[in-house]
């Protein structure tokens, strides 16, 4: 905008006219007044860009006019015309906000310079105003953009199926999305800005995130991990989670955690394992048919022998036949149990029990059979095991399977000169696990057999094995979070070791 309209105020009419003429010839538009009061009225009516006023006037003087104009519009440029030596009022005028002054008599050049300066000032101010307006607009625009983005992010966080939880530097929850509300079973309003990390998470999980923050920038994020979280309503949810530590200018400002619910995935995994297992049972069927046929042969043979015993009143025959029948009934029972164990998902039933006692029970069951086949069974106990939390059924069945296999390995051994022996040893390792070791000096296994040991339908015992024994044992031990280790040497024997987590039961002090 061009500053072009000038108001000239002077009580001397001749000066007003002269100045006006001179300025017009320079291209300005002028309006005039002969006193302060008139000057103010013209100023209000004409809104000039620049005011040039004499300082000494009757009535309202130049200073007074200056003040009034500045009251109306502090940004108006007012040039004061002063008499020679009138320093005091000049200073006062400048203090009141006059932009410049010129001395009387007014010379054209001095006025022109003062006007140019005033115009430059106005131009700068205009520019500044423009900049400021522009800046405001830009800030408004940026603010809008930020608001939009933040809304978008808020929506994103809110609509995420994953649980998103963020903490500030004091570990107070600042973000808790509906996904998190779902997962943790807490209402958003009860958590956000109210709970701390220790109130929301179990101590174990809270510690993981706190440690991560402590480790500083090296640990800004960590790879996805899996864990179980306990919800308020008592559910246990398997989750996959990760976490980011947030820094701003090197300062720790908070942490954000992401949790994914793995319930569905875990369920599918379980189904897959289950169906694989059922398929394996299917594959085992031909092997099983053979085994069942052997049982049938036993039952038929046994009943024939019993019939003969009855007909001849021969008690010995009768007893022998009956023994055969009973043995084969037991084989059916064992087979059924193996099949059920293998095909069903089963959780171990932990209770306080003594592994050494269980070993004794197993030895009692097989000693007769072993002896009649020329196999000597011995034991070596670590009495320090005491009572442990474990599933006695798992231990009993697994051990019985291994001991039966060990005796079979002795019977199969072609080297009849050996004194065949099965040794059962129990021990505790470093309080981490306890071991049940079954060692035989039977035929051992070659590499081929070793490879297939835990495969379904595999049996090294011809028609006498179901191919389920080690399969079932392996499954039982796995469900019990244990392992089975194998060592073997063809012709020299094998050692099978079951290792189970050791959780000692403290015997109650009765004193």
């Amino acid at each position, binding site marked *: 905008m061009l500053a072009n309209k000038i108001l000239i105020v002077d009580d001397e009419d001749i000066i007003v006219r002269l100045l006006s003429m001179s300025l017009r010839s320079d291209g300005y538009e002028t309006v005039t007044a002969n006193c302060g009061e008139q000057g103010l009225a013209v100023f209000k009516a004409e809104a000039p860009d620049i005011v040039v006023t004499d300082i000494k006037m009757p009535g309202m003087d130049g200073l007074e006019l200056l003040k009034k104009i500045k009251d109306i519009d502090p940004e108006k440029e007012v040039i004061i015309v002063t008499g020679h030596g009138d320093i005091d009022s000049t200073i006062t005028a400048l203090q009141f906000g006059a932009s410049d002054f010129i001395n009387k008599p007014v010379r054209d050049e001095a006025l022109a310079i003062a006007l140019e300066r005033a115009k430059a000032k106005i131009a700068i101010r205009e520019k500044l105003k423009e900049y400021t307006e522009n800046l405001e607009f830009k800030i408004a625009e940026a603010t809008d953009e930020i608001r939009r983005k933040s809304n978008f992010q808020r929506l994103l966080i809110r609509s995420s199926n994953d649980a998103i939880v963020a903490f500030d530097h004091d570990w107070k929850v600042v973000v808790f999305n509906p996904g998190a509300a779902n997962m943790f079973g807490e209402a958003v309003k009860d958590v956000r800005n109210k709970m701390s990390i220790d109130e929301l998470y179990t101590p174990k999980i809270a510690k993981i995130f706190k440690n991560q923050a402590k480790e500083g920038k090296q640990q800004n994020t960590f790879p996805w991990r899996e864990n179980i979280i306990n919800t308020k309503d008592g559910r246990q949810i398997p989750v996959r989670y990760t976490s980011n530590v947030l820094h701003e200018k090197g300062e720790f400002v908070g942490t954000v955690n992401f949790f994914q619910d793995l319930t569905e995935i875990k369920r599918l995994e379980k189904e897959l394992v289950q169906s694989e297992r059922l398929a394996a049972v299917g594959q085992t069927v031909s092997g099983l048919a*053979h085994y069942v*046929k*052997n049982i*049938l*042969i*036993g039952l*038929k*043979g*046994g009943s*024939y*022998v019993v019939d*003969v015993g009855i007909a001849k009143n021969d008690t010995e*025959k009768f007893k*022998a*036949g009956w023994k*055969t029948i009973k*043995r*084969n009934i037991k084989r059916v029972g064992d087979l059924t149990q193996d099949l059920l164990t293998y095909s069903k998902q089963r959780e171990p039933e932990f209770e306080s029990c003594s592994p050494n006692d269980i070993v004794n029970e197993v030895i009692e069951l097989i000693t007769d059979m072993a002896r009649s086949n020329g196999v000597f069974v011995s034991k070596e106990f670590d009495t320090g095991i005491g009572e442990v939390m474990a599933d006695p059924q798992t231990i009993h069945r697994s051990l019985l399977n291994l001991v039966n296999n060990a005796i079979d390995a002795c*019977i*199969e*051994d*072609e080297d*009849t000169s050996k004194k065949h022996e099965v040794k059962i040893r129990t021990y505790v390792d470093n309080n981490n696990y306890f071991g049940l070791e079954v060692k035989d000096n039977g035929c051992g296994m070659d590499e081929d057999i070793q490879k297939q040991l835990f495969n379904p339908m595999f049996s090294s015992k*011809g*028609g*006498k094995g179901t191919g389920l024994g080690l399969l079932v044992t392996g499954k039982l031990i796995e469900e019990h979070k244990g392992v089975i280790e194998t060592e073997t040497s063809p012709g020299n024997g094998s050692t099978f070791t079951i290792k189970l987590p050791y959780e000692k039961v403290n015997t109650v002090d009765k004193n």
Partner: protein
Amino acid sequence: MSKKILVVDDDQDVRSFVVTVLEENQYIPLVAQDGVEGLEMIEKHKPDLVILDVLMPRGSGIRLYRKLKTDEELKKIPVIMFTGIALKSFLKSQKALDEFQGGEVPKPDVYLEKPIEPEDLVAAIKKKLG
């Protein structure tokens, strides 16, 4: 005079059944529970007939059968194979051994698959021993 018949089977139930059948029919039963013991018994007692299982620990029936059929003196003893293994599988393994060891072993005279009725077993024995 009663004939001696050797039963070679690792299954105690089968031995007990066959022994009873033999006794009922006035034969003298002998028993062995694996191939190694079977050969010892044959050499010692010279039975009139051998009833032989196929799948056994320590010297399977397949091996003992070959031994009997390739021994000049023992090849005269009639053998009844008595097993849960199908004849096809048995012949297959014999054929593999023929190729491997050279020579040819005659097919078994009588091949009975378990389970069997006592009278069928007796009929097979009678046919062999006349």
